[in-house]
């Protein structure tokens, strides 16, 4: 949406982009909204959509090899090692009204929501391209 709420100063780790590109918009609207099938529905969805859809890859040996390569390419650095829930917990200790997290409830929500889980081997890949635009997106408005 074009309206960006003004963020407090500082921070800037949370990306708040205005969805302006085709890929963003497709992601937001595709297959969403009420379908009414008693009347003509004209598909305006053309070739451009197909290229975006090509993001889905099947986890296969090729995928595994990619992860193996990425793992081997690493320069290990000793750092951190905290579990995410510990980090969130630390945050809540220091911050406002904390709420203990119930993993079970979260799992229930995960089961209820969204698309079918499909085959667990299906994996959605997205190119890692966001880092560079993060600060800019934050500071632009």
């Amino acid at each position, binding site marked *: 949406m074009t309206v960006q709420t003004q963020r407090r100063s500082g921070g800037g780790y949370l990306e708040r982009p205005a969805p302006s590109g085709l890929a963003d918009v497709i992601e937001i609207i595709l*297959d969403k909204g009420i379908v009414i099938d008693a009347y003509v529905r004209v598909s305006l969805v053309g070739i451009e959509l197909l290229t975006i859809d090509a993001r889905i890859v099947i986890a296969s040996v090729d995928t595994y090899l990619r992860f193996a390569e990425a793992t081997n390419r690493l320069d290990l650095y000793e750092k951190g090692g905290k579990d995410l829930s510990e980090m969130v917990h630390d945050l809540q200790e220091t911050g406002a009204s904390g709420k203990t997290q119930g993993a079970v409830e979260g799992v229930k929500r995960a089961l209820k929501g969204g698309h079918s889980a499909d085959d667990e081997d299906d994996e959605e890949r997205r190119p890692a391209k966001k880092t560079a635009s993060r600060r800019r997106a934050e500071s632009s408005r």
Partner: protein
Amino acid sequence: MNTGAATGGTAQVSLGADQALFVYGVLRVDDADGVLRPLTGLDGEEVRLVRAGSLAAAVSDMGLDRPPGRRAELLAYQGVLDVLAAAGPVVPIRFGSVMADEDAIVEELLLPQEGQLAVILDELVGRHQYNLRATYVEDAVLADLVRTEPEIRRLRDHTRRLPKDAGYADRAQLGELVFRAMQERSAYDATVLLDAIDQFVVECLLRTPPSATQLVDAALLVDDARSEELADRLEDLAEAVHDRIRLRLVGPLAAYDFVGESTWD
């Protein structure tokens, strides 16, 4: 253009005309006054309202002999719904929906579905959708796995020393272990993240399940009054975990994910 040719499986009815109405969404007639003008929709056509009872549908003229599928149409559709959503609750009608004329919109959409649409619209008063995505900084997570998983560390040390075209089976096994471990971690971290913002969210739907590289792809329905707290909370979280997870929040949006699929069921 024959409408049947372009649709890929959607049931078709012949319009018997070359002009029709593109439908964007439905809103409460009380919210509609003064919202629209001037608002431009697909093909540069002006968006107007078709009213019936307590509801109004936002539509614009569309020629049926037009070429299909250009980015301009998607952007225009979302742009119109942005404006409508900023003014009040709106039920988006799925992109690509076209009805024959104003009579059809009144008789086949607004009047028969008035009760259900009104219920959905009431639910959306003072609320908007936000899309949240969380992705891993891959190298950081991989490093963590090498550090904490002995078998991954062993296979890594082993395959690293081999020539590039050797050790295929070991490499595949290493990759599979890494992939599975990331999937597991992703499912766990997703619940941690979503629980941490639960109190600011009316409803949360996962748009896609957690995967090895993306923990969260969720639509959040949020009270406008709490949206700032949510953003602040996410900012704190993003800062705390930024060396391994990136958070991205898009919105406020029309509640695309919270209106159901069909008015019929």
